[in-house]
């Protein structure tokens, strides 16, 4: 399911940087220090891991879909077939410098548990997700009266793998609840480019189509 989502994001002509990499992945990759140990949870076809590899990062991945996993392993990536909800519990504390949930959190059954594991396994966590508070989505729900569908979220409600949507505001609340410190926050606008201006949270929550957060364990 996760890889299906990734696939659609790619298909939706997600914005790409000059190197051809998806901008949301570039934003994530920029948050990772060189030489770090990284676990990418829901790594899809391994695009982010490959990008990180070019930056000297020791990357591992977990992916639910067999096709995604086999594709990754055939590319020489260290990826295991597994489920974020079930398998993170097997990883020891502090095994990684960064644990990444790139477009994955909203497809997990227990986002809070997953986030807690993330901060237990890694000293830092990076989470990117589609912002359900974006104005287009609000308009669809308000005027259309139906569950929103966008380029990034193309599924009908009965077949979507995304079972736990949240807005940027909602995510901040969860981060606080699990005791995470927010180190960095980046929002991407509808064209996939970074919203650089220093803006209040309500503005991001309305105009950010995607969000990427860098978290660390508090204390």
């Amino acid at each position, binding site marked *: 399911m996760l890889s299906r989502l990734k696939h659609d994001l790619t298909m939706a002509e997600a914005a790409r940087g000059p190197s051809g990499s998806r901008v949301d992945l570039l934003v994530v990759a920029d948050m990772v220090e060189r030489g770090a140990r990284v676990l990418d949870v829901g790594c899809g076809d391994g695009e982010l891991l490959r990008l990180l590899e070019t930056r000297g990062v020791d990357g591992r991945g977990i992916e639910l879909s067999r096709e995604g996993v086999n594709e990754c392993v*055939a*590319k020489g990536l*260290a990826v*295991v077939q597994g489920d974020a909800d079930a398998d993170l519990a097997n*990883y020891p504390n502090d*095994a990684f410098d960064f644990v990444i949930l790139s477009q994955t959190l909203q497809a997990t059954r227990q986002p809070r548990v997953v986030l807690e594991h993330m901060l237990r396994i890694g000293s830092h966590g990076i989470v990117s997700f589609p912002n359900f508070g974006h104005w287009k989505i609000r308009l669809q729900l308000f005027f259309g009266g139906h569950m929103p569908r966008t380029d990034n979220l193309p599924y009908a409600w009965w077949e979507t793998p995304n079972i736990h949507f949240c807005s940027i505001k909602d995510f901040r609340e969860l981060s606080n609840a699990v005791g995470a410190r927010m180190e960095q926050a980046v929002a991407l606008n509808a064209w996939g480019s970074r919203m650089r201006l220093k803006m209040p949270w309500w503005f991001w929550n309305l105009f950010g189509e995607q969000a990427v957060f860098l978290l660390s364990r508090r204390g």
Partner: protein
Amino acid sequence: MADATATLDLADRTREADQPHSLVVCFPANKPLRLDAGVDFSPLQIAYQTYGKLNAARTNAVLVCHALTGDQHVFNAHPVTGKPGWWETMVGPGMPIDTERYFVICPNVVGGCMGSSGPASTNAATGMPWGLDFPVITVRDMVRAQAMLLDHLGIDSLFAVAGGSMGAMQVLQWAASYPERVFAALPIAGATRHSAQNIAFNEVGRQAVMADPEWHGGRYFAKGTNPRRGLAVARMSAHITYLSDAALHRKFGRRFQDRDNPTFSFDADFQVESYLRHQGITFVERFDANSYLYLTRAMDYFDLAGDYDGVVANGFRNTPTRFCVVSFTSDWLFPTVESRAIVHALNAAAARVSFAEITTDKGHDAFLLDEPELFAITRGFLDGAAKARGL
């Protein structure tokens, strides 16, 4: 078919065990193999095949570990049966385990019957095959013996160790016993321990051998007999566990063999019966019955957790080895859940691990068959590892 096998007399069988069509190394009494059973075994003979060339830095060696009824003849015609090597789909020039890049070594396991010391080898003290006087061996003993072979060949560190089934057990044992000597490990269709169900199947096979009156308490060489029927039945029952219900249906269904109607007898009316009988008959032509007892026992005893305070992960703490674990959806002998347990242990040890489950209806035997995804995964894993090792 039965007549053809009968022509192979016992002398021929001990000949392959004592003077195999392979490279051979002999370790004398001052270099014994220390066995888990508490015995120092000597003299120890190891028969092995090699393919490809060892590079000047001695960094490109790949150890292939064979399964229960396999042997060292990975990529050449079998000296007894004349059939192609058992892993020609995987090993060879341009194949996933590429003999143009890697130096491939495959030894016959200790306890086997194709030239490494085993119950069919001649005991110098008596001039007769060891039979049941041969000490009981374990997977760890097999691996220790392989390490002695590598020392002999002057190979400190293996680029990779690969194998399926009992071969996968050896791969895991290698990574646990000699982590600094294994750069990459590829256990396929394996487990960290032999399950109760698998021990049960093995016991049925051993009982079939021992129930054959020609077995004579393991002294069939001295009696001039051979427990062919018992070993064939053992093979037939084991062979079922290597396949899957779906594969048997696909290949044979309920079709009759060379007839249109049932004969109302106990002939091999069904194709599947005929196939199994053929498997049994051809197997006894190349395999020693006592060896079958010893090797199935070694698998039964395999339990990595037992060696590490009940926690498999302890066997892999701080391991520098990178792993690629592979399982098959229709394998019910070493099901995916067993491979997943390997992966969980490796995750708990924070090891670098890949894990793929391949969709196939071919059952446990899929690791020996034409499975393009297995080849792509092996190639990708080894390519990545080769890059990391600077090969």
